């Protein structure tokens, strides 16, 4: 076991609060889990050295940090500063049907429900998910009542000061036939470390619109997860946009626990320099008649490294499942690296599934078309490469977010190290 994990366990053991039963379970599991090496499948291409070497530590005093400004976005701001919820940034009045509370502030009955839900969706196999269970600071419970359509998006930001360590945790429940949009993002100064996990319970006929922006770069270390449990006739649309850092890892689990669930996941990576981003996306089709559409596109330049593991597991009873996983990658330099592993495991016999992973080259026909309109080959290639990613930005349901992120991605793309 690593020193880092040992210290995490010791720190976790010292916490005594309403979550202690769950923390203890996590610590028990952590104590018997070997620290990942290159032979550990889930960490094969992603070294944990950055965590072992991290000097980040808890900062008790609340720093004065604000989330990154998103032009024209009016969101309900749920802001964590170095892991502590800054309640002052939350509006005084929330839309009807929405509640946001600190787990420790709930009454006994609510708290025992929250305790039961805690870590119920997130699978136990995620090492840093267990670390987050053990060390989560302010655990925030978000609830949308049955039938409420919350028009304003909820934004969950984790902000970190220089050298800070944080462990944020949010539990979101969407009641039946409700609608909520959630934006998750991390803003970190150097040498910081965070684990940020959110569990989503999406009740029957509810719809979740979800974004996760992992745009932190440099020496930040981030390991996080988004875990979705979807009940009958519910749906979700998720967009992940990631730049890389010394270590940036995200685990997502989409669990079709009900029938006729519709899940869409689009992920964009844009990596440069020595950055790393690792997405492990798992979809569990446990029930029949579900659909999943997953699009993952990476552009890597410099000496950066992209890791993608996309697993779709179709259980024996999940008949009439439609599942598609498409992963396309573009290598801009021969020193950049893409490690991709799509996995389909099918135990039902009446399903339609497709998966594919390609290291894309520019579409020759499209290139020719642009050239016949006077655009030179180099410029046309740039346009097509950007278009490759922009196609997924165009699919973001919230145009305020797509208009905000598009120029950011465009600038990053044009500054990429192409040799």
């Amino acid at each position, binding site marked *: 076991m690593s020193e880092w994990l040992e210290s995490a366990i010791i720190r976790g053991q010292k916490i005594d609060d309403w979550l202690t039963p769950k923390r203890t379970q996590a610590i028990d599991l952590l104590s018997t889990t070997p620290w990942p090496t290159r032979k550990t499948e889930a960490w094969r291409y992603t070294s944990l050295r950055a965590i072992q070497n991290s000097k980040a530590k808890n900062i008790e005093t609340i720093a004065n940090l604000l989330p990154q400004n998103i032009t024209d976005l009016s969101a309900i701001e749920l802001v964590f500063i170095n892991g502590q919820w800054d309640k002052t940034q939350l509006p005084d009045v929330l839309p009807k049907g929405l509640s946001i509370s600190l787990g420790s502030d709930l009454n006994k009955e609510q708290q025992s429900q929250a305790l039961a839900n805690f870590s119920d969706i997130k699978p136990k196999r995620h090492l840093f998910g267990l670390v987050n269970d053990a060390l989560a600071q302010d655990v925030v419970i978000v609830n949308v009542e049955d039938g409420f359509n919350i028009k304003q998006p909820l934004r969950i930001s984790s902000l970190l000061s220089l050298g800070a360590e944080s462990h944020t945790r949010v539990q979101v429940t969407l009641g039946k036939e409700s609608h909520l949009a959630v934006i998750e993002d991390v803003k970190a100064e150097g040498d910081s470390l965070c684990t940020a996990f959110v569990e989503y319970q999406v009740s029957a006929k509810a719809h979740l619109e979800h974004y996760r922006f992992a745009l932190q770069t440099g020496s930040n270390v981030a390991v996080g997860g988004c875990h979705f449990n979807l009940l009958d006739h519910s749906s979700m649309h998720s967009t992940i946009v990631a730049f890389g850092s010394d270590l940036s890892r995200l685990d997502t689990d989409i669990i079709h626990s009900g029938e006729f669930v519709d899940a869409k996941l689009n992920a964009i990576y844009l990596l440069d320099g020595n950055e790393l981003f690792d997405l492990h996306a798992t979809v569990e089709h446990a029930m029949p008649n579900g659909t999943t559409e997953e699009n993952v596109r990476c552009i890597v330049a410099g000496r950066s490294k992209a890791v993608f593991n996309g697993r779709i597991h179709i259980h024996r009873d999940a008949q009439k499942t439609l599942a598609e996983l498409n992963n396309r990658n573009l290598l801009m330099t021969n020193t950049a690296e893409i490690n991709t592993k799509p996995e389909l495991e099918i135990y039902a016999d009446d399903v339609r599934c497709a998966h594919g992973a390609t290291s894309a080259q520019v579409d020759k026909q499209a290139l020719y078309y642009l050239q016949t309109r006077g655009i030179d080959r180099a410029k046309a290639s740039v346009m097509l490469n950007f*278009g490759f990613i922009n196609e997924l930005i165009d699919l973001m349901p919230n145009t305020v977010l797509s208009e905000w992120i598009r120029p950011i991605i465009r600038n990053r793309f044009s500054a990429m190290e192409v040799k």
Partner: protein
Amino acid sequence: MSNTKSLLTIKDLYAGIEEKQILKGFNLDIKPGEVHAIMGPNGAGKSTMGYVLSGRDGYEVESGSVTFNGENLLDLEIEERANAGLFLAFQYPVEIPGVSNLEFLKASVDAVRAANGEEAITSSELLKQAKAACKQVNLPLAFLKRGVNEGFSGGEKKRNELMQMLLLKPKLCILDETDSGLDIDALQLVAEGVNSQRSPDRSFIIVTHYQRLLDYIKPDFVHVLADGKIVKSGDASLALELESQGYAWLENGNVEAKIEE
């Protein structure tokens, strides 16, 4: 007219794709302002001619020459040909999701302007021109924000080609079966678009299988292409003759019109 300098002169062109010879001694001379129709059966080499002139990869010229506006066209890159004023409206325009029409049009207009020593167009001026062009070809303005040809119907793609032509103001437009798959209203719209662009310094090659487009765009010359070369040339009445008698009629003149893909 005969004293005017030619805009395009194709002499004894032999060309094809992957060892397969498709154009076999193709000759054509076009002067500024002229509208030429090229008709012929499937597989005669009509689309190949457009691809060879535009410089598409994979299309090899074995022999012959092509002079465009005094330059050796075959020496130029694809984009240089476009910037010199050659425009090919495709039979099947490609869809490019992720690249918006407007972004594409700006890059294209700027490239052509740069080649003519002009400054880049401002975004607002381009938008103004693009809106006007959309209106002229009856494309919804929302299309400007969509990906290039993304999800467009066949007719919309053809009109989008025409819209680009309106913005780029080329010297020579090759319309490759622009009429195929269009209903009569769309056909008229395309014809009006082309007619509005006819001018003494702009020429057209209208490649078509059927005569009906030529009811609306009156050509100065009609050529029949069969088995890689022009076997008959005439005025607009030749198109009518072809329409009534079919391409088989040509075979009486010992011209073998090969039916291929």
